[in-house]
């Protein structure tokens, strides 16, 4: 490329710009020396600080934790949910890539991992490793905080969602209220992003999201008031319990209008097609995220998919029975005759090795025979091992499903939630986008009266029937 240019001279003159002592010293070091110079002092300092902190602050800190168990529980739940969001977002992104591709008569990603299952992870890491800068003229503090606010608002919302009996971050008695207030916080992040980007497209996107979410919060909240009346509580857990029994106890059959309103308003709340005004590709380039790159964009990207998951989970929880099974299922068999400790360590080792070895070979034969292309020996062995893991994991889940009601609840919950996730993806592949005035008009002229009507009818019915 630079055939005609004296490259060496260029480099020297460029280095001459910073011919100060530290830079000169640094440039003479080899790679290993540089690494050592960075990491060894850092490791020493970190070790000393850790030891000091443990020795000095450890006992009082443990005492403090012991005295505040709810706080500990909250912190653990928040951390667990924060960690949960990342794989959730990856799964959803892959799902969206693949499902939309199928609806477009395409194949979709199929190169990284079998059927491209690692593609969303690759995309995620790539986005995280991009250059991350704030544009000239941006308000850098707000610009940096905006994705954090959006992401944290999404994550905090997950705290009150009951995944399974007993598997809930915090069973607040005002769970739904908490959910709506936290969901409303998302818009603050989007507005911050739109305002601080120094870009008119971003500004329009931010303002659109503000207007949209404010409008749709009202029918969204009003539509669940009927459910609250019926269940007599705002705790998510107890709303689920109020629907336990059979399919007919689900609130979707008692409140069909509310369920419809809730679903539509929740689509707008999650900024999904056909209400994705805030990042309308063909109008305002990427909306509030126009100026975002790298990790900050990644946060927005993740938050969007976490939001989709949350909204689906909420629809499933409030109207479709949450983790309860649609029909009476005689689970919770007593598996006490099975005592895993009786095998001993070597017994387990033998079982694992035998099952692993023969299972891998068994599935590798299938991979070799039925693989779509010429698999090599090691490739088919690896694929066989993967198959084995999948089968074993499936068996373990099945055992858990039979033995523990929280596993069964989790399975039912996830099945319902992902059904709605796929509905959202389907809508995205199918529908065009509405215009911003149609969006607002729909919220105020149709959804709001309908939700009020629903509320009125529900309240009247409850009063009349209880009397």
């Amino acid at each position, binding site marked *: 490329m630079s055939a005609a240019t004296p490259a060496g001279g260029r480099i020297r003159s*460029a280095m001459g710009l910073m011919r100060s002592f530290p830079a000169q010293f640094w440039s003479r070091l080899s790679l290993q020396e540089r690494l050592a110079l960075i990491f060894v002092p850092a490791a020493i300092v970190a070790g000393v600080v850790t030891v000091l902190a443990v020795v000095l602050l450890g006992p009082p800190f443990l005492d403090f934790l012991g005295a505040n168990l709810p706080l500990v529980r909250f912190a653990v739940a928040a951390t667990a949910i924060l960690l949960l969001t990342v794989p959730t977002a990856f799964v959803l992104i892959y799902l969206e890539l693949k499902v939309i*591709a199928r609806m477009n008569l395409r194949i979709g990603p199929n190169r990284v991992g079998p059927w491209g299952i690692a593609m969303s992870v690759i995309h995620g890491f790539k*986005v995280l490793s991009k250059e991350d800068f704030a544009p000239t003229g941006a308000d850098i503090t707000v610009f940096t905080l905006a994705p954090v606010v959006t992401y944290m608002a999404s994550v905090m919302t997950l705290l009150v969602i009951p995944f399974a009996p007993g598997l809930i971050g915090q069973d607040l008695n005002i769970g739904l209220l908490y959910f709506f207030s936290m969901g409303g916080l998302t818009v603050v992040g989007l507005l911050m992003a739109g305002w601080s980007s120094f870009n008119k497209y971003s500004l329009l996107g931010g303002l659109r999201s503000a207007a949209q979410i404010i409008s749709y919060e009202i029918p969204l909240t009003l539509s669940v008031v009927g459910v609250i009346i019926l269940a007599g509580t705002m705790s998510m857990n107890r709303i689920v319990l109020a629907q336990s029994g059979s399919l007919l106890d689900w609130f979707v059959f008692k409140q069909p209008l509310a369920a419809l309103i809730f679903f539509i308003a929740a689509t707008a709340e999650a900024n999904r097609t056909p209400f994705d005004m805030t990042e309308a590709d063909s109008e305002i380039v990427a909306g509030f995220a126009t100026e*975002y790159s790298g990790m900050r964009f990644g946060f927005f990207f993740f938050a969007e998919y976490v939001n989709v998951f949350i909204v689906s989970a909420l629809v499933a929880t409030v109207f479709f029975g949450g983790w309860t099974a649609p029909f009476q299922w005689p689970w919770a068999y007593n598996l006490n005759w099975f005592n895993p400790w009786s095998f001993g360590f070597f017994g387990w080792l033998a079982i694992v090795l035998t099952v692993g070895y023969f299972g891998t070979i068994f599935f590798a034969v299938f991979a070799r025979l039925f693989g779509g292309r010429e698999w090599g020996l090691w490739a088919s062995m690896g694929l066989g091992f993967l198959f084995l893991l999948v089968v074993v994991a499936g068996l373990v889940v099945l055992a858990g499903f039979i033995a523990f009601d929280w596993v069964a609840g989790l399975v039912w919950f996830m099945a319902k939630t992902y059904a709605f996730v796929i509905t959202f993806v389907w809508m995205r592949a199918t529908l065009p986008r509405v215009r911003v005035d149609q969006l607002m008009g729909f919220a105020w002229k149709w959804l709001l009266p309908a939700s009020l009507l629903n509320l009125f009818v529900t309240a009247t019915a409850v009063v009349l029937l209880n009397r």
Partner: protein
Amino acid sequence: MAVGGREPRGSKAAPSRPLAPAPPGELSVPIAVPNTLWQSSNPLAYDGGRPAEITHLREFGLTDAGRNDAARWGALQVIPTNADYILDLIRANSLWPLLSGLACCAFEMMSGATSKNDMDRWGMFPFRASPRQADVLIVAGTLTTKMSGPLIRLWEQMPEPKWSVALGDCTVSGGRYKRSYSVVQGIDRVMPVDVYVPGCPPRPEGLIYGMLQLGQLVKDRRGHWNEREIGPTAPDDI
């Protein structure tokens, strides 16, 4: 109607010249159209015919700073060079193009992304509308002098690491418009190019092959982060 409101100067004196090919070697007299709309000698109007400032690479190119990234990263160059041994493997599989088409080739580019030739199979599908989130600038179509300024700004708005693919003859060299008065004779005169895909226009398979070559290039260049050039890649004496 006229905003300048100035009298035409010396217009009647110039005789109209009949059409005849000028003898070889003779210097034609430049045309001066005396009208009141604008005066080319007026320095306030239209820069007085000076070169446009739409390419703000000029000062940058004169400073020599863009030729090497060492000045940018300074003491921290350890991190990009070595992290890239791993990250480039990831990047090679996730090349998001910028949704930007200039002319005819844009249709073949889109065709490459659609059902029949599905670029998404290699993770190249999410055409980003904003340059901030794109990895690859596929310059699809004729680049005119008027468009080169916006194109360079797009290129500069893309965050590192970024690559560019020149799609089509016009983009690679000017192609069938090489003689034209308003076409840049190859985009490597104004910005760097990683992969050239010739053809007028190339088939979508050509673009996909070029993108796969780009992925290979990304892997091949691992660890050579600071040797990249970020300015034009054409030799100076073209």
